[in-house]
């Protein structure tokens, strides 16, 4: 026996070892990433009825961005006024349901915290020119930046420190890095404009919070050239959607925003282009009954599409930030000088200027009921520092017909607050002046300047409080065969383990009902055994 076993086991072991690599050895298709985005631009140019390179107004050698805008406005007379009503310009967003004014201008998040007093840096992502402090005039039309969204050359770039202007001369960036950024040829850019591409939107939305993929989790530069696995809609070799395919615009108002999420859209699919309150929702194209199996369609009144179809977010090596701890900022290196380090994957891990970060990729979402309404902590709101502060309270409940179970990214932070007044602080981080945190590494001075700019009192005492910010996940839609399987939720310790208020077969059950069922099974078994024994016994007796 042992001899046989000794012979069999090596064969089994060797077979298994040979089979295992074979399972992974599916030949990779050659990486034929050409430039479909360029193709799209070329097609776009072919389809347009206006060749901007032939426009007389655009034949000038523009010196500044506002000069380009003035030229644009000679034909697109209403464009700037339209943009000035959008949150890309105001950095404000009114919640129609609660009346709360939110937006970057009003909330303090747990990434970079607030743009107030840091405008010169933060406005690299403002669709405008010159917002460097509170004196910025939001009515000046020439300060609207058309090119940041409409450039097709990929050469137009805005850097932190220039109050939303592109660089007009060659600069070293980052400072002392030995890398240089060339000024864009504004004439060439102005003559080559088009609909926003993934790169245009991504130049800000992929790099929010100062690093690739840091903020959203479902938006990073991998979506510039995405494969099918990453996003079925944006797949460069397939549907090749751009951002504005779903985020359709009307009068420069971009539809679909995390501030006003259409969390529970009902009804049939709409025709694209038709006026619709939520064209960016999945249901706009797919309806609320998109599956062939009616059993799956029964789930849509409780689950957001994203819950099953985005099984993980940050599905690439870029990853996303899981936490940001500001309390570690100002900690110097062993030599007493500012220092910085990266994690094993090459992502920022520590910086004396900003603190510590933790990153993750292929992240399993956290699930919660969500009705599309988030109530934010705005500047000056009181907090309870003994508890984790929720930067945004996600609305929704199992009894709310407008709520669905949504996948979310929860970003954990540790950030400064005023210990006497009990509110989150605004800090002056960027800049070269005497109170800038990144220049002098003095929290008290930085908070003092930030709070003054925000119009809030600062007691002079600060501490650090734990915070959480919740982001609904909606991009990086996986192919349908990678959607969650039934058992991933319908099990004791499945994805929806913590979701309350809904009966989930295989997760939920009645102890007494289960006991009654098993008792019946046991009694049936005993009955069969007794019956069988009696039959055998009586047949033997008959034989005698």
């Amino acid at each position, binding site marked *: *026996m042992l001899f046989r*076993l*000794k012979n069999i*086991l*090596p064969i*089994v*072991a*060797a077979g*298994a*070892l*040979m089979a295992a690599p074979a399972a*992974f*050895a*599916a*030949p*990779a*298709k050659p*990486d034929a990433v050409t430039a479909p985005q360029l193709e799209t631009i070329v097609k776009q140019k072919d389809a347009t009825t206006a060749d901007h390179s032939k426009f007389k107004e655009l034949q000038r050698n523009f010196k500044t961005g506002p000069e380009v805008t003035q030229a644009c406005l000679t034909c697109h007379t209403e464009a700037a006024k339209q943009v000035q009503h959008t949150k890309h310009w105001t950095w404000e967003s009114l919640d129609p349901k609660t009346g709360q004014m939110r937006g970057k201008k009003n909330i303090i998040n747990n990434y970079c915290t607030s743009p107030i007093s840091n405008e010169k840096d933060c406005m690299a992502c403002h669709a405008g020119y010159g917002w460097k402090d509170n004196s910025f005039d939001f009515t000046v039309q020439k300060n609207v930046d058309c090119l940041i969204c409409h450039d097709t050359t990929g050469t137009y770039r805005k850097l932190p420190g220039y109050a939303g202007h592109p660089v007009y001369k060659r600069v070293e960036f980052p400072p002392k890095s030995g890398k240089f950024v060339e000024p864009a040829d504004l004439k060439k850019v102005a003559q080559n404009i088009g609909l926003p591409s993934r790169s245009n939107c991504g130049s800000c939305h992929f790099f929010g919070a100062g690093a690739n993929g840091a903020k959203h989790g479902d938006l990073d530069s991998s979506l510039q050239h995405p*494969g*099918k*696995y*990453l996003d079925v809609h944006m*797949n460069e070799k397939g549907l090749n959607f751009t951002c504005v395919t779903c985020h359709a615009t009307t009068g420069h108002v971009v539809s679909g925003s995390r501030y006003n999420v259409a969390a529970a859209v009902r009804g049939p699919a709409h025709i694209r282009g038709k006026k619709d309150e939520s064209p960016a929702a999945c249901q706009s194209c797919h309806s609320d009954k998109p599956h062939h199996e009616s059993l799956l369609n029964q789930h849509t009144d409780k689950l957001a599409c994203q819950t099953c179809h985005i*099984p*993980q977010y940050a*599905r690439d*090596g870029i990853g996303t930030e899981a936490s940001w701890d500001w309390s570690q900022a100002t900690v110097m290196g062993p030599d007493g000088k500012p220092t910085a*380090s*990266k*994690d*094993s*994957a*090459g992502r920022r*891990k520590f910086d004396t200027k900003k603190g510590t970060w933790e*990153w*993750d*990729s*292929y*992240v*399993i979402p956290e699930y919660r009921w969500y009705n599309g309404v988030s109530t934010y902590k705005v500047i000056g709101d009181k907090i309870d520092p003994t508890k984790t502060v929720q930067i945004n309270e996600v609305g929704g409940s199992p009894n709310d017909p407008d709520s669905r179970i949504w996948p979310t990214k929860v970003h954990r932070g540790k950030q400064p607050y005023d210990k006497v007044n009990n509110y989150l602080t605004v800090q002056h981080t960027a800049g070269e002046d005497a109170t800038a945190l990144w220049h002098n590494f003095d929290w008290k001075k930085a908070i003092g300047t930030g709070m003054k700019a925000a119009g809030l009192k600062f007691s002079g005492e600060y501490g650090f409080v734990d915070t959480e910010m919740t982001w609904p996940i909606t991009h990086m839609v*996986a*192919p349908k*065969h*990678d959607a969650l399987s039934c058992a*991933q939720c319908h099990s004791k*310790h499945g*994805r929806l383990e913590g979701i309350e208020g809904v009966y989930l077969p295989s997760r939920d059950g009645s102890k007494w009902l289960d006991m009654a069922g098993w008792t019946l099974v046991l009694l049936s078994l005993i009955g069969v055994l007794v019956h069988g024994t009696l039959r055998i016994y009586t047949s033997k007796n008959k034989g005698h």
Partner: protein
Amino acid sequence: MLKVVGGFFAGIVVVMLLVYNFAGSLMFREIPSPFGVEETVARIQQNIQNAGNGWALSGLRNAAKPIEMDGGNVLPVLMIEACSTRYSGPILKEDSLRFLSNLMPCKISVYKKNDGKTYIGMMNAELIGSLFGSMVGGIMKKVSADQAKFIVFDASKPAPAMIKGTPGAASGGSGAAADGGC
């Protein structure tokens, strides 16, 4: 007599069932890691480089990548390949054992599961080696002892950078150059 023979065969069946049931878990081990995928890989790589005994990194493979290229998704799986010529040499010299080159280079896989945690998967080199005679068994016992050191982590030390591809080789994988392992 019938009872004795019957009992003997019943014993064989029970043993076979036990072997069938537990052989897989005996031949391979799975250990949870306190770190993320990349950091676990980087720390194992560092341990391999510091292990001595002729150990060198042969490559780092991403088993999830070909699936992504085919339009599918799996959670990350990174396979660290390492080899020691001190151990591989004697085995490869024997014609009767050269088929064991299938086991080379040694692989340690680091992967994430649906619970969001990172795991380390590795072969039980000692057990498998013992199936191929005393010479291989002896070598694999030493391999196993070294492998155990690969997964000892000192969290107080900063995370090193993950080494992508194959050290010393023009391209990734185990098609390595002279100093890329075995």
